[in-house]
């Protein structure tokens, strides 16, 4: 495949990860921080960036570990524990790095980073990347696309929740109840993207 072909394929992977196969709205991964931190656009933005960054970083690292350590040694079954260890260490490391070199970013993302360590969307993305046997370039695209998709979803949700603040919601539906209904509607809307890409 020539370079153009690779890039086009990577774009398709990224687009499908963000829209048609949105990790949050079609796979319902990463729901806990999605429900908990989607009250304000500002904090959602912080968490969104953190997820985008960590997802891309860990997908790349885990791709290397999987294809260059686990597969040659026939230890594919270790991928769950390996991925978790890699994610935890990566997040710790990034936290230290930010604290040192970018206090502003640390203030905005710092508190979200430990939260993401245990986010199932991060592990989910790494596992999809393995199951679908992405190439390295596609893995990078997939990580970026999934992260952007997750961020898009939480930003949309936060926007809706901010707009909804003055509305009178029946008591039993307040909080997670109404949020889950909205997620459902958003998921339906995202289903509209299916078919935009053939084979995406």
């Amino acid at each position, binding site marked *: 495949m020539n370079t153009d072909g690779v890039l086009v394929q990577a774009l398709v992977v990224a687009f499908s990860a963000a829209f048609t196969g949105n990790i949050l709205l079609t796979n319902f991964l990463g729901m806990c921080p999605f429900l908990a931190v989607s009250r304000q656009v500002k904090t959602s933005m912080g968490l969104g960036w953190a997820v985008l960054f960590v997802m891309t970083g860990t997908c790349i690292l885990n791709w290397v*570990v999987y294809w260059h*350590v*686990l597969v040659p*040694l*026939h*230890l594919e*079954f*270790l991928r769950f*524990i*390996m991925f978790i*260890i*890699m994610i935890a*260490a990566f997040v*710790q*490391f990034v936290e*230290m*790095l930010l*604290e*040192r070199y970018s*206090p502003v970013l640390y*203030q905005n993302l710092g*508190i979200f980073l430990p939260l993401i360590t245990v986010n199932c969307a991060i592990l989910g993305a790494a596992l999809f990347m393995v199951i679908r046997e992405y190439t390295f370039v596609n893995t990078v695209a997939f990580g970026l696309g999934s992260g952007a998709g997750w961020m898009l979803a939480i930003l949309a949700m936060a926007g809706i929740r901010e707009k909804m603040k003055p509305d009178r919601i029946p008591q039993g539906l307040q909080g997670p109840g109404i949020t889950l209904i909205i997620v459902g509607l958003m998921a339906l809307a995202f289903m509209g993207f299916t078919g935009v890409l053939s084979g995406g």
Partner: protein
Amino acid sequence: MADMFLSILIVSAIAAALAALLVVAQRYLANYGKCRIKINDSKTIEVEGGSPLLESLAQNKIFIPSACGGRGTCAYCKVKVMEGGGPVVPTEEPYLDEGERKDGVRLSCQVKVRNDLRIEIPEELFSVREYLCTCTRIRELTHDIREFRFELKEPAEITFVPGQYVQLFSPAYDGNEEVYRAYSIASDPAEKNIVDLVIRLVPGGICTTWCFEHLKEGAEARFNGPYGQFRLSDSDAPMIFVAGGSGMAPMKCMLHHMKNTGNKRKTTYFFGANLVNELFYRELMQEFEQSLGSFRFVPVVSRPGEGDPWDGETGLVTEALRRNIKDAAGCEGYLCGSPGMIDAAVKVLVELGVPENKIFYDKF
């Protein structure tokens, strides 16, 4: 079989490599070099950056009170950070109100020293020291309250305001971590090389269990202090003391002080206990009644048993307070005891006419 060993080896190797990476990162990334902390615009200390402010100050023998050991749960370690503290972190948020935020108040255990700081702390904290001492006497006061006498070795003397407390150090034992716990000084402030603490055994308490089971006469101990704002006012207003159990300690200390300084303020002291044999220091209180002139000690027993002859006040200490005092306008209240007792006593005193800002207390 080989697979099993290989997988264990690989997992351990990668985990070890990552751990090593993090240790190296910690060493180089979290190394902030020397930072200067300017305190109250007068004193400047130089510390190794990267540690919490509370710890950095303690290394320089400036002790900020802290009961939780730097975990950000007790909120005792508040200091004013005027410059260089960065924004309030989420772990501090629940403990700071609007006014405090405006004044730059922070929890010193949550502020990391990453650069030069300018802070303000109460002047009296400079006189806080760490004291090395010997436990010279342990007296049983009731079945679960003991008086521990400590003779100071280094420094050999302590100066404090009656009503203040010290933080006793309990070393690690039986799987319990080392902790500091606060106890009011009970001894006569004139005896400068002696500190008596009155301690009630709290079931499951780390420090009190250590005191009751591991601390022996002749053993070494250490504490730091003195701390606290609980003290006698400078006025001549009549005083009402209310205490229960080991809440006796600061009251006893204040009474010693009043005797030493010839203070003749009218004072009524309500002391609550469950049973007659849980009353203590009764002879001492009788001596104070004679030597102080206008001091009255009112022991209150909530459940006088059948065997124990008791003709004094019965019921709750707050009930006795109501029976004995009809109008307390112009009085000051001094309370020491459990939060429940203090809340109840504050309520009664306010009803009897004591303004809320004239009620002083030490909750534990």
